Each structure stands twice: as C-alpha cells, then as structure tokens.
C-alpha cells in the first residue's frame, strides 16, 4: 500500500517530498527491475539516474557492485543483492542497505547481472559524483578516467568543486587537466573555453585531441543562402580533393539547387516500363543492345513527355562548375574554433614528429627481431657458408623448449631464465648432431646441403606437430615484461620488444667477442678461409666446424624463446622467418656481422616505411619489401658490406 503510494507520488514528480526515510535502495532497484535485468544501454539510463539520484547512502555501493558484476538477482522474489562466492554453487547474499549477510543461496536460484562495457561506462559516469571526493585515491583516479572516457556537462561543477580540497598532488594535476578538457567541451562561456584550449598547445595527449577535434567538426553546404552568422571555415568548389564532383552534385541536388538528371538505371527502368509491341518509342527491342540506341529511345520517350527529360550532353562537371560551397563549423563561436585550429595545428606538428619517432621505434624493434632470427644464420651461413634450411626449425625448437619449461616451472620469471640456457643447450645439441650426421658430408656440395637440410626441416616441423599438436601453445612473458614504455600518448613501445632489442645487442656483443677475441673464433675464421691451411696449423677443422655450427644453432634456439614470447609458438613459427633471415644475411653481406646488422635494420625500417605509406594493406608492404630486396641484390650482389680480397672466397 505504502509502496504503491510512493510509486504514485513518483509519477507525479513529487519525489523530493516523498523520499521518505523508509524508502530503501531495494525499492529503487525494484522500480527499475525490468530494465536492469534487460541490461541494454539504450534503456538503462533511467535506472542508473534513479539510483545515483536517490540520495541514499547505499547508492554508491550498489553502483560499484553492479559495475563489478557482483550484483545478483534472486529469482524467487526478484530482489537484488550483492553476492559473494562461497563455493562453486553457493553464494552469500549481502543486503545493500544494511551491508549485512542475509544468508546463502544456490547459484541456480540466482541470476547474475552482467552489465556490458557500455553500461559499465555509464555507471562509471554516474559514480563520478560519489567518487570524486572518495577517501580512496584509486577510486578518485577511476572517477577521473570515467570522466575522460565519457564526460558530461554535469561533471563540470562537482569536478571544479573537488579540485580545491584535493591533497594528492598527482591526482590534483589530473583533476586540473580533466577540468580543462571538460571546459572545452561543455563550458557555456567562450572565453573560458578559449583559455582552456590554448592551455593544450603542443600537448601530445590523446584526450586533448579528443576534446579539440569535436569542436572543429565541419560540414560542407552550398554557399548560397548561408546565414550571416555561420562560422565559415573556408569556401571551396567541387572538384577539389576535399569535395569531389559527384559529392558536390549530390549536395546541390539535395539542396534543390539543380534538377537531378535521370540516372542510367532510372533511364533503363523507364525504357522497360514503356515496352509496346516489342518496341520502345518505335525502336525495336532487338536494337536496344547498345547504349546509343537506348539513348535515342529514351530521348523519344522524353519528347513524348512520358519520362523526365534527359540531356545527353549533361556532365556533372558542368553542373557543378559554377556552384560555390562553404565548409561550415558546427561550433558557432569563431573565437573558439580559431583557438582550437591554432592549438590543434601546433599539436599536429608535435604529433607528426612523435609519430615518426614511434614508427622508428617500431622499425628498430622489427629490425632487432629480424637480426635475432638471422644472427644464428650469420654464423652458419655467413661464416661457414652452410645453407641450413632447418634454421627456422631450430628457432621453433627453442620456442617449444620455452613452452615445455613453462609447463614444468610455473613461475614465469624463473622459467624464462631457465628456458634461455636450456633452449641453447637443446638446439646446440641438435645443431651438432645435424652437422656430424649430415652437413659434414656435404661441405663440397652446397646445393645439396640446401636440399638435405630442407628434408630435416619438414621432418622436424611434422615431428613438432605430432608431439605438440597443431594448436598454438602459450608462452607467457613474466609480469615485469607486460605493458609498454610510454613516452607520451603517441610514442610507446612494449617492454617485451625492448627486451628483444637488448637481447639482440647482447648477441651482437657475444658474436663479436667469440669471433674476435676467443680461440674458437680465430680457428673458425681460419677454417672457413682455408681448411687445409688451418689443418696444417694444427687446428682440427672437424671439431671447429661442429662447434661453430652448434653455436649458430644454439643462438637460434634463444631467438626462438624471444620470438615465442612476443608472437606465437606453433610448428610453423620457423618457416615464417627462414626466408627473411636468409635475405637479411644476403642483403647485409655474407660473412660480416655488421652487414647482417645493417641488413636487418634496412629491412625492418623499410617494411615499416612501406606500411606507413599504405596503412591498410600490410601484405603489400611485405611484397614490395621483397621486390625491393631482389632489385637491391641485382645491384649489390655481395650485399651492403662486401668482403674483399681472399676472404671473399673468389
């Protein structure tokens, strides 16, 4: 009885008076039970407003629980509770108003409310008023993020009021920035907006651009009949890059400035509807299989007055030639748009520069990945001259080693630290085995090495499929490699890529050290230059070849762990990199690690550069890169850094 009275009062919008003390948050929820259960962003707004505007202390709790998907509805009576999981099928119900448990319930009797992210954002926006002054700093930050995501005019006043009392300097700064963003969008006072806009000069923040761009939205209209007060950006004519002839034509037609000409399809339809005795306007049907004949028949129809007139000489260009168009801001205030244009121009310059940096970082990262994949090959192919088509499969073996280690050692950090030496050991052993069993018999037959190692490659690939299945396997990076190093909203690079870059640098160092400073390196260089002479000097070429090949393979294994971390672990992982790796080595110049480095850098940057020119088609970028490499090799067949003299081998 009382409840229906309250409901009636609400209907009469005498709610303020009627918000009696005994009205609980449950009542508010029940009033909107249907839309809450329906959970659609299109209809949910009244429910959220009612809860937020109820003035009840539990409102914040309800919204937070709802947002976190912790609110459940009991099916028997339709009441809403916050529920906490006891075990897989029992939940403890907590009353919102009292915050006390009202017993447990079976999961089958409960219905979880699952607001989608659109609704969650709306709840977040409604929560702002509660959270802006929340004692918990994290909540305050969340509220500010909610405003930045989904700001409303109503947020402006509470936000301004909360700045004064903010003690946390970091959040205070965030509040001030957010306040200026809101000012740009919602403040009625133009002067305040201009001031706020100018404050963002040169800022790289995405939010600043997101606030400024909507101020500058424009539309193109025919210049004629434009009201004096219109905030015109510029005048333009059809046929310019910003307004094609057909767009201009459509604008004029829809503005009623010119009469539309019947289109090809309309003319055809008119012809079809006037077929009489196997002819249209006297032209026999059989003759209507050319456009010329159809035009003649249509002209006759138009003459009869049964179809709209059509001028055969009509062109869109002529129709729009004399028309003027204007691009008009949606924002009426010229002061605001001028300030926004100026600020955005300065921002765009900064953004352009930073995008270039970002692209360079991407290129650098890709280069380091290619380098890492190719460095093992730089040893086996570059130094020893062995074509190892199974190199990609060594990379794959390394990645799978990482996966297996992670299955045994659950701690991601420890497992990665274990996986790296293990991957080296596994692929080193595989490399040595392959060198002993196959390659050493074929040192004089390089083309056949290619084919034999290709045989090994397909066998290993299929073997991996048989053991690990065809499904991709997870190789997860440790938590401290999650996320990205962000310089600003434009320039950022993920930590995992930085780690790969550092790894690549380390290997460059290791390679140089081994080749230049150790006995093995010296012997390797000697054996590759002249095995007989080296053997005469007491070097065992067999042993050196074996170790060198093992070293190259081992490095491939470590590269596999790194590549698996940032991409995927499948049996086809290796074949994705093999052609690129060979090209990296060949482009750079065989037998020189600096060449490989240069080759990887060139390929990485080139690919990113082409991607930048054609952002919608990454495949094209790869194609053109390979074509470029082919052409490059025609002109520098020995690569960027060509060996000279005896070391060149010919």
């Amino acid at each position: 009885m009382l409840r229906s009275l309250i409901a009636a009062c609400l209907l009469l919008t005498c709610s303020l008076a009627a918000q009696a003390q005994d009205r609980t948050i449950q009542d508010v929820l029940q009033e909107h039970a249907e839309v809450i259960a329906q959970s659609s962003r299109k209809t949910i707004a009244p429910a959220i407003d009612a809860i937020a505007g109820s003035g009840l202390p539990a409102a914040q709790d309800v919204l937070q629980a709802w947002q976190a998907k912790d609110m459940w509805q009991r099916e028997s009576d339709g009441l809403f509770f916050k529920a906490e999981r006891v075990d897989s099928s029992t939940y403890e119900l907590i009353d919102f108003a009292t915050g006390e448990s009202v017993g447990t319930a079976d999961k089958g009797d409960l219905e979880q409310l699952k607001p989608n992210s659109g609704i969650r954002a709306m709840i977040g926006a409604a929560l702002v008023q509660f959270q802006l002054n929340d004692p918990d700093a994290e909540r305050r930050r969340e509220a500010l993020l909610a405003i930045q995501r989904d700001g409303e005019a109503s947020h402006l006043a509470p936000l301004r009021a909360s700045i004064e009392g903010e003690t946390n300097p970091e959040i205070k700064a965030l509040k001030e920035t957010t306040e200026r963003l809101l000012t740009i969008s919602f403040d009625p006072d133009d002067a305040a907006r201009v001031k706020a806009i100018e404050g963002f000069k040169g800022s790289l923040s995405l939010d600043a651009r997101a606030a400024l761009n909507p101020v500058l939205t424009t539309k193109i209209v025919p210049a004629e009949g434009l009201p004096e007060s219109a905030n015109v950006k510029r005048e333009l004519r059809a046929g310019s890059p910003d307004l094609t002839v057909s767009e201009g034509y459509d604008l004029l037609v829809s503005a009623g400035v010119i009469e539309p000409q019947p289109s090809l399809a309309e003319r055809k339809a008119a012809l079809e509807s006037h077929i009489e005795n196997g002819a249209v306007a006297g032209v026999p049907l059989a003759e209507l299989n050319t456009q010329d004949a159809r035009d003649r028949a249509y002209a006759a129809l138009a003459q009869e007055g049964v179809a709209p007139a059509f001028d055969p000489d009509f062109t869109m260009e002529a129709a729009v030639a004399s028309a003027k168009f204007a691009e008009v801001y949606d924002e009426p205030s010229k002061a605001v748009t001028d300030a926004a244009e100026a600020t955005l121009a300065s921002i765009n310059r900064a953004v352009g520069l930073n995008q270039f940096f970002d692209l360079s970082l991407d290129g650098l990262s890709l280069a380091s990945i290619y380098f890492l994949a190719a460095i093992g090959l730089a040893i086996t192919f570059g130094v020893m001259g062995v074509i190892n088509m199974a190199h990609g499969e060594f990379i794959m073996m390394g990645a799978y080693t990482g996966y297996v280690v992670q299955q045994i050692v659950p701690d991601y950090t420890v497992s990665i630290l274990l996986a790296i030496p293990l991957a080296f050991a596994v692929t080193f052993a595989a490399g040595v085995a392959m060198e002993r069993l196959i390659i050493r018999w074929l040192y004089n037959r390089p083309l056949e090495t290619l084919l034999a190692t290709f045989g090994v490659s397909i066998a290993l690939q299929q073997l991996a499929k048989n053991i690990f299945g065809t499904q991709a396997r997870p190789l997860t990076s440790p938590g401290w490699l999650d996320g990205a190093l962000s310089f600003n909203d434009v320039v950022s690079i993920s930590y995992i890529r930085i780690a790969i870059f550092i790894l690549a640098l380390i290997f460059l160092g290791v390679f140089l050290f081994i080749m230049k400073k150790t006995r093995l390196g010296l012997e390797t260089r000697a054996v590759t230059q002249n095995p007989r002479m080296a053997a005469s000097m007491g070097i065992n070429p067999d042993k050196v070849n074996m170790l060198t090949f093992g070293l190259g393979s081992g490095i491939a294994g470590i590269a596999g762990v790194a590549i698996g971390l940032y991409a995927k672990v499948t049996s086809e992982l290796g074949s994705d990199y093999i052609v690129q790796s060979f090209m990296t080595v060949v482009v750079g110049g065989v037998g020189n690690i600096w060449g490989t480095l240069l080759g990887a850098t060139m390929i990485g940057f080139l690919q990113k550069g082409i991607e930048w020119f054609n952002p919608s088609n990454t495949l094209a970028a790869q194609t053109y890169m390979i074509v470029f490499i082919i052409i490059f090799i025609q002109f520098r067949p020995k690569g960027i850094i060509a060996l000279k003299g005896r070391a060149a081998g010919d």
Partner: protein
Amino acid sequence: MTMFKKNPSLMVFIGLLAIFTLAVTFMSEAYGTGALSTSFVKTLGKTLCLALVAIAMDLVWGYTGILSLGHFAFFGLGGYMIGMWLMYARTEIIVVESMANAALPPTPSEISDAIGTQIFGVVGSSDFPLIWTFAHSFWAQIALVVLVPGLLALVFGWLAFRSRVTGVYLSILTQAMTLALSLYLFQNDSGLRGNNGLSGLQNLPGADAISQDNISIWFFWASAFALLLTYLIAAFIVSGKFGSVIRGIRDDEARVRFLGYSVEGFKLFIFTLTAVIAAIGGALYYPQAGIINPAEIAPIASIYLAVWVAIGGRGRIYGAAIGAGFVSLVSTYFTGGQAPDINLGFYTIKWVDWWLVLLGLSFVLVTLFAPKGIGGLFDLITHRMSPNRHGLPLGPDKGSLREEEAEK
C-alpha cells in the same frame, strides 16, 4: 639423330608412355572398363604435368646447375593465365543466358559488368582489373600462358645472371621472387581473387553436357602428349653441343666463360625456356585440379619440385619424370588416409602424421647415400657405373666435384 643415339632411354620412355596412356584409357570410366575412377585418372593426368615440370627443373638444375626455387611459380602463372579465360568464358555463358530473359537485350557493357560481379562478387568487388583485359579471348590467354612467365623469367634471369649471382645466392633470390609473387597474388588488390584464386576450372565453357569422365581423359591425353614433346625437346637440347656447354657451365662456370662461351646467354636461354615449359605444364594441370590459388605458388612448392628431381635422379631426363611421378603418387597414397596404420603395441603409427617425417628423412638419406636418386638404380641394371678412378681427384679442387657422370 644423335639425340636417339645418345639417349637410348628415349625410345624406352616413349614406349612406356604410350603403353601407359593406352592402359589408362582402356581402364577409364569414359572409354574403358571403369577400373580406374575418374578422380584417379585426374590424379594421373596431374602427375604427368608434374613430371613435365620436373623435366624442366632437371634441365635447369640437373643439367645447367641453377637450383631455381622459382619454377613452380612459373607453373602457377601458367595456370592463372588459362584459368582467367576459363572463368571468364564460363561466366559469360551463364550471364548471357540469364540476361536473355531480361526485358531489354543487354548492352555489351552490361554483360561485362555482370561477368565482373559474378567473378569478383565472391571476393567483395565487381570491377574488372586491368590484367583481365584479354580474358575474353582464348587465343590471347593461351599466348599469355607462354608470354607472361617467359617474360618474367627473361627479365629476372637477365638481371640475376648479369650480376653474376650464382649458386645458393641465386637459389635464395629465386625463392624470394616466388615468395613475392605468392604474397602479391594473396592480396585481393592484385585482381586475381586473392586467396580464393580461380576456381571451377574443370568446367570447360560450353561443355556442360560432357561428363567429367570424358574431360578427364582428354586432359590426360593432352598431358601425356605435352610430356612427350617436353621429353623430346629436353633430350634434343642436352644431346648436342648445346648440352655439352650447359653441362660445362654446371661443372665449372668460370672455365666455360674463359673458353669464350657466353655463359649468361646460355643460362638465360635455359632459364626462360624451362619457365615456359613449366607454364605450359601449369596450364594443363590446373584445369584438372579445378582451382588455382596463391598457396600453390608458395616457395615450398618449388622446393618440393627440387626434391622430386633429386629423388628421381638429376642429370637424366627420365629420372626427373620418375621422381615427380613416384613421390607425388606415394604422397597421395599416404596422406589420403588409405594407408593402413601400423600398430606397434605401445604406439600406433598413423601415416597421415608420420608421412612427412618419413619423406623428410628419406630425402636426407637420398642426398647422402644415393645422390643419383632412383635413376641410379637403372645404372645398376645397365652396369653403367662411374669409372673407378682411384688416385687423382676430379679437377683441381674438391669443390668442383659436384657431379660425376663421365662415361666409360
């Protein structure tokens, strides 16, 4: 007729091919007992085309020493060229038929638009790209089957040989070319229907009433005839003085150059000629396969081609043909799911899973222990062993000891 004298195997091959063709015909569903299903006749026809391209590969690799990893790309290009006409002509018939019922007789541009919509509607477009300009003409596309791969090979070969890119570098470069081509064709924007490729090629335009049983055997004959011609051409090329020169190039390029031969010219000729042969093989293969798409051109296909030739035996034409036929048929058998599983008690070997491992390993073994491949078996039979030269190695350095085929 030095050709026949130098190649005693030629007559044997021709004879065997003729017997084989007749046998298949009399066992086919269309003209014989029906012991061989149409799908198997198609498989055999395709295998003949593969043997054909393997002979081309043998010419360029086994005889001239250029390990090209791009010949399957030429093969695919040939397929694409004939496929364009097949698709266009087939669709044109359908479109004209359906438009015959329209109120107004269609204009030529309406027909062409409708064909475009039919062909490219599948990949979300409707306009004819420029490369389809000649698709309406059978003879133009037939010419393109030869011209496009031929020109590509000519330009690529000219650039590569001119820069003296040799050995494994050339292999990698041809592989890069193949990769670029397949990536290019994978793009929808390339105008050849991207990943979908050209399909329904087995339905010859205007031959709806003719059963695939008959069409398959016709293509089988055509493939056998083309294989025969290729074999004769290859035998002719390698038998004369020209053959000696290219073998010389294979064994020591520098020496041949010092003798005054234009090494680049010879290589370019062989490279282009084999590309054209491969393309013709492709033009016969894909109407039997029914569909061509960029995956066919991927670098791995060209490597497999080299594998066939190596297993069959390089440097002898019949070896290449045998290798291609043997490996592709055995592959079909083992991956077809028909081969019985082997139960080892603790583990059941499923051939579907283990066939590739076996193939890979057998390939290693062939390279290591039987560099002459299956063809080497015939040497055992005919006692055509290499001369037993103890003492001096062949040539000045071990490096030149690549192929021993000196005759008694």
